[in-house]
């Protein structure tokens, strides 16, 4: 409950801060709008030349991509600002401020800055998601929809966790951004249905670098028959990722040298 109240304070503070920078507020909205448009248009152009992608037709792929955008908007709203500044805190020694607070440092660092401008985009993503559902040929099963949304929220947490993995090397290398750029590029794999991947890439994408689990697996659970193996895969990877993150975070902090980093 204490953490919940603290998070409400974070949100209040973030909104008042966001309205001080009004132009930036609108620029970020434009940026996300074009990102959403490009992702949807990409598949619309593709469907001019293909009838299906795997078992999914145009409307099903639209549900998948709008689900992905919803997941992305949750990540952008809740986590992205915090994770962006992470390497700077480490390199400048500003992490001290977070470590001495009487709350979990990981909670404080990853959730302090709620992106109010991205919240507007989150609302847009919700709108797109609803729009995509209305175009679906098959009937919507309520419990599957709830599960889909929960899995997308889980996808946003996993996406953030893997972003964190990519910047944690900064504790050792002191480089400006660690492997964040590599992560942004490779994370694009989550923007495509997992049916397209084959062989060892497919195995990697559902286990050690689980980009298939962020949006594609949840969409499969929603659009197709419920599959315990897919669901079990999501749960196992989430559990494994959280444990690994906790372990590496503890190790990384031991390597933190404060202001002289």
């Amino acid at each position, binding site marked *: 409950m204490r953490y919940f109240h603290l998070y409400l304070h974070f949100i209040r503070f973030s909104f008042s801060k966001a309205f001080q920078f009004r*132009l930036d507020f609108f*620029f970020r909205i434009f940026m996300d709008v074009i990102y959403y448009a490009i992702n949807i248009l990409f598949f619309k152009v593709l469907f001019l030349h293909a009838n299906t*992608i795997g078992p999914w037709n145009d409307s099903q792929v639209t549900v998948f991509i709008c689900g992905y955008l919803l997941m992305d908007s949750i990540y952008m709203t809740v986590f992205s600002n915090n994770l962006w500044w992470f390497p700077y805190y480490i390199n400048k020694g500003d992490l001290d401020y977070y470590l001495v607070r009487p709350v979990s440092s990981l909670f404080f660092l990853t959730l302090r800055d709620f992106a109010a401008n991205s919240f507007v985009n989150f609302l847009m993503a919700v709108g797109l998601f609803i729009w995509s559902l209305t175009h679906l040929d098959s009937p919507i099963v309520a419990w599957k929809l709830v599960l889909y949304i929960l899995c997308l929220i889980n996808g946003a947490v996993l996406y953030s966790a893997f972003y964190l993995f990519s910047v944690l090397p900064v504790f050792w290398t002191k480089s400006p951004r660690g492997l964040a750029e590599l992560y942004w590029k490779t994370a694009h794999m989550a923007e495509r249905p997992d049916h397209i991947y084959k062989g060892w890439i497919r195995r990697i994408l559902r286990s050690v670098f689980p980009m298939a689990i962020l949006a594609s697996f949840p969409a499969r659970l929603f659009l197709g028959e419920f599959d315990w193996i897919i669901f079990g895969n999501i749960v196992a990877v989430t559990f494994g990722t959280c444990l690994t993150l906790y372990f590496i975070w503890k190790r990384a902090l031991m390597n933190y040298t404060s202001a002289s980093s």
Partner: protein
Amino acid sequence: MKPWIKSIFLMEVKNILTYRFEFWMNFLGGTAANFLIAYFLWNFIFEAQGLTTLNGYSIQGMTLYYLIAPLTLRVMDADSMGFISREVYDGSLNKYLIYPVEIFIYKWISYMVRGCFYLLQLFVLLGFFLLIVGAPKEFSITPTSIGIFLGFATLIMVVYFFMVASIEMISFWADNIWSLRVFVFLLVSFLGGSAIPLSFFPEWSMPILKILPFRSMVYLPTQFLLGKHFELIGEALLTLSLWGIGFCLALNFLWKKGMKQYTGVGM
């Protein structure tokens, strides 16, 4: 060559190579990821529909396109993030105003060094592709096509530099404009044909794509390197020149206006 040009050049090379491991991991990993996503997606579509060519591309040709087009975009973008806006924001632009070097020449050299670095990498990867996979039959990469591409690479860097610098000038009036730059980058990427070849776009969009500069920035230079559409060289040159002049004038205007606004103490 003036000594400060060499100094800026060497400093930029040093900056690029300071964190070598991250640099190569980010570059090679990023390129490989981009390449793999495109390969798997198109291979899936080709196989599912039992096609050997689609819109004039074989699967090898499509993969080669997805190697070159994003790298051309990268040459042009050349890590232009954090260009002038941050310096306007925190007041560190002051140092450029007292340097005995024109700020835009300084910035251009830094930008160009990075662009050339990526250009070199593009050709290394292209060499590897041709060595391992071989040249797709629908393309013919020749010394002429490489020469034309190099000429266009220089021109698109100039136009993109003016374009991004003009956008950066907005930072004299706005606190934070990184999202606006990402907005433009996404536009260039999609409408330039880096995400999907422009020949796949619907017919009605073609007149719009022809007017905008993005097609001539990524799609056409990529086609020229692959030995195709040489008949569009004149059109691409004209488009880029007109937009380049427009951006240059906009930059000049905004810079003069912005300097009147600039306090030098940061925001």
